[in-house]
């Protein structure tokens, strides 16, 4: 079986180029990310970004390899049926495809390991540039990474081919005798069930997510909702593409090209959904993630604006009787370690906290407590976001271990706000961070004059909020650059691959259309029109999936931001890439004279 795999590989390498590149890229990115993570112990933000990159890479690699394989197997149905016809068993057909995937995985890994070193220096440079890693950072090489990469490369390829090979094994020998290889139904019962289940799962997760009040729960829920919906819609895309084709085709009117394109959209269902799927996933990831971050930022901004009541923010303690000052809440940010016991497991985490004077704090902060009261916040007590009133928590602050009681429950914070409030006198002075004071002026006081008497620098409240926004935004922007770049790269490989494979398949169809009287330009125009409709579908379904994430997160954020800029940029890119590829491939597919192609099979 293996020699047959090698022979097939040599003969049909074009079908596999996209999948090999995908595996190469996946191996390279995972290898480089892991090496950086292994050396970047203390840089939590870098690790978080790389963790996301790792996940996105592995997911997209498996998705693209599996959709490529599903597509090539549909094209090779006749060949596979022939094997069955001359005595191949179902198991042998599966083994043939699995060993093809093995070859592909090994090849991708062999290319991916050196490529990983290039990605490593690019990723390090990018993360240093964004300020997440120090300039002197260099990731150490580890021998074990080779095994991880090899396992990953082969694993991704095998995972990608698994479903397709099971399907291929059901090819009936008689199909070898049919004229066209496209005899198989695209929408099988299992595909319907899978698609509907995933869509329902996605919508359910979205609804659950809107009801969750904690961002730590809502973020993964809504991202998962988006992924489930995107996968579900891509499973159902063979039904949706022709529908949208009919809609947009009507817009193209009854021109000859419009009619042919409309008919082809109905006909080439598998081809079109293979092109739309990577686009759909790209748009879902890009818009979903960008929108989630933008929504959370906006939510955090709104939360801060709603919460803080003051005019100026000074960088230091402010005495209560300073002239012109009505109230001043002096707050000391600090990090505390909290030990929680969960079913016998003790876990210690660091959390941001504020040491405050409860009396002035509640004058400067308006957000209502979920339970308890600031009045009880004295002595060994604490206010906690998401804690249980009356329980005690084990905290370590400075060099002291404390067991304060929770007397107030804070609303959940978005994006790294303080999770705990401690009475100022509970905290050893050495542990206090640099103070900041939220100052409310007396009516009629001159802000500029008062500001001069306060610890410098003094910001207006708006300036201060803007400053905290931009700190959060630069982290988000860094994450987005890394993840978007990645997702776009995969999607380009996936889309170009699908268009190229499809055009190879269409040589004969194009030739027949030309013999019927179509000019070469009309054929290219038809192909372009079709690919435009497919692009529109991919963008639309991707956008819908992304909305699941945004609606899911909107519950906890109290707002929703749709990143239109990123969407239009992606749309423009998608039209350019798909359009250019489709013109290029249909041009080359129609280069030979039609009569020489019309008679050929496959």
């Amino acid at each position, binding site marked *: *079986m293996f*020699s*047959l795999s090698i*022979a*097939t590989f*040599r*003969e*049909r390498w074009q079908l596999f180029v996209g999948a090999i590149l995908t595996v190469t890229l996946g191996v390279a990115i995972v290898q480089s990310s892991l090496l950086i993570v292994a050396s970047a112990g203390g840089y939590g933000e870098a690790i978080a970004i790389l963790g996301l990159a790792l996940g996105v890479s592995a997911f997209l690699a498996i998705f693209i390899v599996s959709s490529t394989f599903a597509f090539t197997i549909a094209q090779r149905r*006749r*060949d596979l049926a*022939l*094997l*069955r*016809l*001359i*005595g*191949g*068993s*179902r198991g*042998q057909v599966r083994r043939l495809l699995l060993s093809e995937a093995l070859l592909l995985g090994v090849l991708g890994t062999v290319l991916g390991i050196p490529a990983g070193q290039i990605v490593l220096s690019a990723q390090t440079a990018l993360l240093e540039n964004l300020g997440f890693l120090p300039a002197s950072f260099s990731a150490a090489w580890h021998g074990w990474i080779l095994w991880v990469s090899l396992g990953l490369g082969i694993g991704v390829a095998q995972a990608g081919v698994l479903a397709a090979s099971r399907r291929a094994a059901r090819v*009936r*020998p*008689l199909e*070898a*005798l049919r004229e066209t290889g496209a005899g198989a139904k695209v929408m099988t019962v299992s595909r319907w069930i899978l698609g509907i289940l995933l869509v329902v799962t996605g919508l359910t997760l979205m609804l659950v997510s809107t009801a969750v009040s904690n961002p730590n729960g809502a973020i993964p829920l809504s991202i998962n909702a988006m992924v489930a919906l995107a996968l579900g819609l891509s499973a159902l895309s063979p039904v949706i593409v022709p529908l949208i084709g009919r809609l947009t085709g009507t817009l193209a009117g009854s021109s000859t090209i419009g009619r042919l394109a409309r008919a082809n959209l109905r006909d080439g269902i598998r081809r079109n959904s293979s092109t739309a799927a990577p686009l759909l996933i790209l748009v879902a990831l890009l818009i979903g993630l960008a929108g989630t971050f933008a929504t959370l930022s906006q939510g955090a901004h709104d939360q801060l604006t709603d919460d803080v009541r003051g005019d100026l923010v000074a960088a230091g303690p402010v005495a209560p009787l300073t002239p012109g000052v009505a109230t001043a809440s002096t707050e000391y940010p600090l990090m505390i370690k909290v030990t929680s016991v969960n079913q016998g497991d003790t876990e210690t985490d660091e959390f941001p906290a504020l040491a405050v004077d409860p009396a002035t704090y509640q004058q400067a902060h308006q957000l209502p407590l979920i339970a308890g009261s600031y009045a009880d916040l004295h002595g060994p007590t604490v206010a906690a976001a998401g804690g249980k009133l009356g329980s005690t928590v084990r905290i370590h602050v400075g060099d002291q271990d404390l067991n304060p009681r929770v007397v107030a429950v804070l609303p959940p914070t978005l994006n790294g706000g303080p999770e705990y409030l401690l009475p100022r006198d509970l905290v050893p002075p050495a542990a206090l961070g640099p103070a900041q004071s939220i100052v409310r002026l007396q009516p009629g006081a001159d802000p500029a004059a008062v500001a001069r008497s306060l610890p410098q620098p003094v910001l207006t409240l708006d300036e201060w909020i803007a400053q905290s926004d931009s700190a959060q935004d630069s982290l988000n922007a860094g994450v987005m650059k890394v993840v978007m770049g990645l997702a776009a790269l995969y999607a380009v490989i996936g889309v170009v691959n699908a268009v190229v494979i499809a055009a190879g398949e269409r040589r004969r169809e194009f030739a027949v259309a030309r013999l019927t009287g179509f000019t070469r330009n009309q054929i290219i125009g038809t192909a372009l029109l079709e690919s435009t409709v497919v692009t529109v579908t991919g963008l639309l379904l991707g956008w819908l999936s992304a909305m699941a994430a945004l609606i899911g997160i909107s519950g906890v954020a109290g707002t929703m931001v749709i990143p239109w800029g990123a969407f239009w940029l992606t749309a423009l890119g998608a039209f350019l890439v798909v359009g250019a590829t489709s013109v290029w491939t249909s041009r080359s597919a129609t280069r030979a004279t039609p009569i020489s192609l019309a008679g050929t*099979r496959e």
Partner: protein
Amino acid sequence: MDMLQTQADTAVELRDVVREYGSGQARVRALDGVGIGFARGTWTAVMGPSGSGKSTLLHCAAGLERPTSGQVLLGDRDLAAASERDLTELRRKDIGFVFQSFNLVSSLTAEQNVALPLRLAGSKVSMTDVRAILTTVGLGDRLGHRPRELSGGQQQRVAIARAMITRPAVLFADEPTGALDSGAARTVLGLLRSMVDDAQQTIVMVTHDPAAAARADSVVFLRDGRIVDRLVRPSVREVADRLAALEA
């Protein structure tokens, strides 16, 4: 060569085979109670107008399609009731196929194509046998060529060699000369004839070409899913006339 053979002399036998497609209003009966035995060591041609059911008959006889009712006996086994595993086993050992469109694996050389059924069956592949059989079909000097480097006639001869390497009990041929020019067709038919005469090979062949049918030992005519006529050792003219009468 009479059709009424004792069972021991019959390679394949169809008993009251019915094959229907579709359901309800769209139901089509492609075979309507066909009973026929193909005697061992003979060459039978199946003819009939388009849509008469001749391909369906071939597919049912070869176990590629399951009859709606009736039996298909190959030796003492009923193909109509055989499991998928049994049918795979059968295709490995007892049945060979030759088609109009050759159906060679395009990535493999002539030699590799011929050896493929043996590899699939997990048997020991004797390259001497493979070369010998390719020499028999006149391709001893084309062993390392891939299908696209061969002419249509040569590809069909590779396909015949591939079908014969397992020494099948029955060789099923579906329009084996349909895509060939007359010279190549003559060579292929000559090859089939000598397989029957020299090695007592059983062949069942569907064709619409009277010249091809006339090389067979007998010709069976189908119309509307029923066997309507049979000629033994006919001339090309007789076959053509009978076919024209059926199509009228």
